[in-house]
């Protein structure tokens, strides 16, 4: 009996099984694909942009993507362990950048800033990372840990609350204006790398990110604590049966993610040269997008997703939108980023590298 029903269902043609929603989604895919192809083709044929412009956009995309990737690590690592989106993470990034501003200004006033640039940069980085870590640990202790056993929506709401709390606390302390970062003289202008001119700030961002990512990867893959982190993210209960102090590992996870975000804050400020209490919001959401894009919970995925998003955001507007005849396409880069988020969530919720996560979680 049951077998015949199944057989009948299989025998129904694909045409009968097609629903209105399927049609709409296919249409959506086709429309996006068509827009991308037509736009790209038109832009390239118009020849409006020289090769050098493309290169600039490409490098900007990589450096922007590096910052996203560094922030995305925090989202992905915390998600990997607690299955929770730490919505305050963007503000932890902001805290890093903001305190770094005070460190940078102090060094500047003391006249040390441009006399010892590498040392100054190191000091600023340490201050930013330390602040970001302290804030993150405080948030974890106060806003998340008491809710560890609550339904999943509860810590999410608590995270949004923490995010607003941090933003308005910083605003209350330091005001709502933009604060201008001092500039490193050595990082002005371009470096010539293999005949290609690269903005120095962007080169610093890219190199620093590569170093931090490598360190982080080695930490997670090669150390005892990193292995314990992966064990906890797979099975918290059994990890505790192996003698692993799960709370401690969670704290370390928050700390590592926050340190990366703090460093990202400094790099971001090097490029954009200003800080603001709300500056964590957009990079935060973009980094979250990057984490989802790469497959949330997956560390290499976050790195890849960040890079991908940065590139798409910087090259996409002129490559696709310009060809479609849209004026001032660069204003629409956020549209591209969030269209990507929506599309990934609809068509491939497990992200680029998230295959193995799809079955196990959610």
């Amino acid at each position, binding site marked *: 009996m049951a077998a015949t029903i199944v057989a009948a269902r299989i025998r129904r043609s694909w045409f009968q099984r097609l629903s209105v929603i399927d049609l709409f989604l296919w249409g959506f895919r086709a429309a996006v694909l068509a827009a991308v192809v037509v736009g790209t083709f038109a832009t390239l044929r118009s020849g409006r942009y020289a090769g050098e412009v493309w290169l600039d956009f490409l490098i900007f995309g990589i450096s922007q993507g590096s910052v996203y990737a560094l922030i995305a690590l925090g989202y992905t690592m915390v998600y990997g362990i607690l299955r929770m989106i730490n919505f305050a993470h963007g503000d932890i990034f902001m805290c890093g950048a903001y305190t770094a501003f005070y460190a940078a200004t102090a060094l500047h006033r003391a006249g040390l800033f441009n006399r010892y640039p590498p040392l100054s940069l190191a000091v600023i980085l340490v201050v930013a990372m330390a602040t970001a870590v302290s804030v993150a640990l405080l948030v974890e202790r106060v806003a998340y840990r008491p809710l560890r056993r609550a339904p999943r929506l509860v810590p999410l709401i608590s995270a949004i609350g923490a995010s607003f709390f941090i933003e308005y606390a910083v605003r209350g302390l330091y005001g709502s204006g933009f604060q201008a970062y001092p500039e490193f003289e050595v990082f002005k202008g371009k470096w010539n790398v293999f005949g290609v001119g690269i903005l120095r700030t962007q080169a610093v961002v890219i190199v620093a990110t590569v170093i931090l990512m490598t360190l982080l990867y080695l930490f997670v893959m090669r150390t005892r604590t990193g*292995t*314990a982190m*992966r*064990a906890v993210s797979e099975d918290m209960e*059994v990890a*505790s*049966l*192996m*003698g692993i102090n799960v709370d401690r590992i969670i704290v370390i996870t928050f700390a590592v993610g926050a340190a990366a975000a703090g460093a990202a804050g400094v790099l971001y400020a090097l490029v954009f040269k200003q800080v603001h209490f709300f500056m964590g919001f957009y990079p935060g959401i973009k980094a979250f997008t990057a984490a989802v894009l790469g497959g949330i919970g997956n560390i290499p995925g976050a790195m890849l997703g960040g890079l991908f998003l940065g590139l798409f955001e910087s090259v996409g507007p002129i490559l696709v939108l310009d060809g479609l005849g849209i004026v001032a396409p660069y204003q629409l880069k956020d549209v591209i980023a969030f269209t990507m988020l929506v599309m990934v969530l609809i068509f491939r919720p497990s992200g680029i590298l998230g295959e193995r996560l799809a079955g196990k979680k959610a």
Partner: protein
Amino acid sequence: MALLEVDNLHVYYGQIHALKGITLHVDPGEIVTLIGANGAGKSTTLKTISGLLRPQQGRITLSGEDLAALPAHDVVAKGVVQVPEGRRIFGQLTVHENLLMGAYIRAERNGVETDLARVFTLFPRLKERRSQVAGTLSGGEQQMLAIGRALMSQPKVLLLDEPSMGLAPVLVEQIFETITGINRLGTTVLLVEQNAYMALHIAQRGYVLQTGEIALSGSAAELQANAEVRKAYLGG
């Protein structure tokens, strides 16, 4: 004096009264088995001993020292380790990493290397596969890994939750032989099993758990001879 002692243990899941005053003890060097039907409370007993569940009432002591208030990771440090039901190895970690996680509480590097070698002699298959991702091991190999991982903490008491579950008959025998071997080397064992026949074969004593209460206890031979046990657990 008993090594592990459980006295009048009451455990609830919300409103469900899962353990209704369990009392049992395991002497040094013994294999003691806890048998019972599905849902009798065997896993609940082991989870409570391991510190994953908090008893409402009752005492758990190891050589007289109270365990009931300790978090799970400290119970391991005291010397009581559990191989959980369904193996639950870390599927995305390699065999070697799984074993290292078993030795997480231990600081001395040399000791860990020695124990690694010992686990590999016990389970040569694991040695061949030490850099393989554990999720790709066969069911039997995963059970070996789960046991090997637990041994890496050098436990005084090994808690085993249905180690024979889902294994082919040949492997079942092999696993029970291994447990006997581990016990001979000095580890005390509390063995939870559905396979009462094999469990009573290797154990010195046993307890029969029924809906959260100890219905019977005695030497393995007494239980094997008991008419009720024969009818309910040994197939007549």
